[in-house]
């Protein structure tokens, strides 16, 4: 016997507490489901494979102020020297370091512009045939660059490279399931033949749509400022990082070495703001859930203290202890249901607002359902203890003055 109708009627006649509580539940549902979705989205992102062997890689910046050298020749000498340091697997001069938030991207097309054709944005790394080894990415199809395919210069459109290696994500999106190997794409107006496809290779911006559309273009344009990436045995990385500055300066001292940093640490710095936001969201979720639980607990206790005589009277009229517990559970379930229904609509509305304002993904249904189930369980736990206490009231309270 659930007494739904009389409980509903009683709530209708004494509605202030119930309205406050269901509004609180609705607000909690809306905020917590969106926060949980964003937290999960971020956790998924943090777990994502970047394709790089992050723990084995470090990078540094190289600022040359000496005018008495050929930068390209010096770069080759530097690369040779670095690769001979014990523990080093490979090294490459590169215009942008992955996962750091700073790099280059361009539009790529299936036909030479201005012809109309499918186009996609494409992040790129200008580097040579040592890039795959330095990155530690997995080549799925095709081959690495040959040394003669690497172009050294500054005129990309006129005398640039003819080949490119792309990520699998880019290949699948551009060619929609067909093999990309041997196909040509146009970057600027330059045709590049795809000679290799790598499994996963994140761009300098590891979050968002363009994070997986990546390429390596065999083009070296060494300037006064350049970046160098070094891959070592994992156990040797820190020791190589300590000596790299001295080694580089011993080669040529009219330059400075800056920002010697592991790739793992670079990504952590890039993610720091998001991680902070995620932690704040977690705290918000915990606070909201606690406040709602306390609200339910408080209202139930208030209702019980207000209805002590009524509970005694119900017991005197034949209510079993289980009837009293059920009464409060049903009452709470009714308030919760209204709150959860309104909260679910509010959650999707809030999700849409956040999606438009911050370009995040659309809220998924499972997070709203999960939050609703969680709040149901929490409210059940919050109401069961005071309800059991009420059930233990003696029926003789009915005859006493309170």
């Amino acid at each position: 016997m659930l007494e739904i109708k009389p409980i509903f009627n009683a709530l209708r006649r004494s509605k202030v507490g119930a309205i406050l509580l269901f509004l609180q539940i609705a607000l909690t549902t809306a905020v917590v489901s969106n926060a949980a979705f964003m937290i999960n989205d971020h956790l998924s992102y943090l777990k994502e494979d970047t394709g790089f062997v992050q723990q084995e890689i470090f990078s540094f910046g190289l600022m040359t102020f000496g005018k008495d050298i050929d930068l390209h020749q010096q770069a080759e000498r530097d690369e040779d020297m670095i690769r001979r340091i014990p523990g080093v697997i490979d090294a490459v001069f590169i215009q942008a370091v992955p996962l750091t938030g700073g790099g280059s991207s361009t539009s790529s097309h299936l036909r030479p512009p201005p012809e109309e054709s499918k186009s996609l944005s494409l992040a790129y790394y200008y580097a040579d045939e040592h890039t795959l080894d330095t990155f530690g990415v997995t080549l799925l199809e095709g081959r690495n660059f040959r040394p003669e395919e690497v172009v050294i210069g500054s005129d990309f459109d006129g005398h640039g490279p003819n080949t490119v290696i792309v990520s699998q994500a880019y290949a699948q999106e551009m060619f929609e399931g067909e093999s990309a190997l041997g196909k040509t794409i146009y970057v600027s107006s330059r045709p590049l033949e795809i000679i290799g496809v790598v499994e996963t290779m994140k761009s300098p911006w590891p979050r968002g749509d363009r994070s997986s559309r990546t390429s390596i273009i065999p083009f070296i344009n060494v300037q006064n400022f350049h970046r160098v990436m070094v891959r070592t045995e994992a156990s040797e990385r820190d020791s190589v990082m300590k000596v790299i500055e001295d080694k580089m300066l011993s080669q040529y001292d009219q330059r400075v070495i800056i920002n010697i940093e592991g790739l793992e640490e670079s990504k952590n710095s890039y993610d720091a703001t998001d991680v902070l936001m995620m932690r704040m969201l977690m705290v918000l979720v915990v606070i909201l859930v606690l406040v709602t639980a306390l609200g339910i607990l408080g209202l139930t206790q208030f209702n019980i203290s207000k209805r002590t005589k009524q509970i005694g009277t119900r017991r005197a009229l034949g209510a079993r202890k289980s009837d009293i517990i059920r009464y409060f559970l049903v009452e709470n379930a009714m308030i919760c249901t209204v709150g959860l229904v309104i909260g679910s609509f509010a959650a999707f509305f809030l999700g849409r607002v956040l999606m438009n304002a911050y370009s995040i993904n659309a809220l998924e249904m499972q997070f709203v359902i999960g939050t609703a189930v969680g709040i149901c369980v929490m409210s059940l736990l919050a109401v069961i203890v005071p309800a059991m206490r009420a059930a233990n009231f003696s029926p003789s309270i009915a005859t006493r003055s309170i």
Partner: protein
Amino acid sequence: MLTMHNVGKIYQTDSVQTHALRDFSLTVNEGEFIAVTGPSGSGKTTFLNIAGLLEPFTSGQYTLDGIDIGGLSDNQRADIRNQKIGYIFQGFNLIPDLNIYENVEVPLRYRGVPAKERKVRILECLEQVGLASRARHLPQQLSGGQQQRVAIARALAGKPRFLLADEPTGNLDTLMARQVMELLEEINQNGATIVMVTHDPELARRAPRNIQVVDGELADLTFYQGKPATPASAPEKSAHESVVGG
């Protein structure tokens, strides 16, 4: 109907032991109307609570309608309260958030009476107390006397054989009190056994049998012949019998 034999009730705190009832023995036969009187704190309400299974007793034996109450579980006691006993409280004890109809419905819901049957019974009982037209009113929209009549309707709804009334007219003016008393007499004439606790000597005299509780003990037993009874027409009190067959 009701037999108590040497029933005792002790309220125990850390430092104080209070004997609310001592060796209380009483028999109430089916169809009787008994008024229980006594000074404040004498144990009247404790007797009524034990008789109505609202609280357990400490010692002795209590049998209601052939059932030994002493060994019953909490659920069994709740079921007996629901099926055999009707309560009328001094403060009416109507549930303020429920209307009159829903208030009378409460014990029937706990008994699991089907909705159609509930409706018939509720309207019958409200008709009997003259409040059928107020079924959708809230308790606070009725006078004290009307509220007590609703409480009587609620007590009658489950067709109990045993009606317990705790100062049923205590919160009513004289006219209302008389109306309520007449209603109880009518209910008694229809076959229900009634035990009524009261402070009002005039009301007590209208009951065919009076008992007095003093210091937790059955102190006196009084019969009056004919109704309404008056002191002048009342027979001499019987001697101080402690256990009485009606």
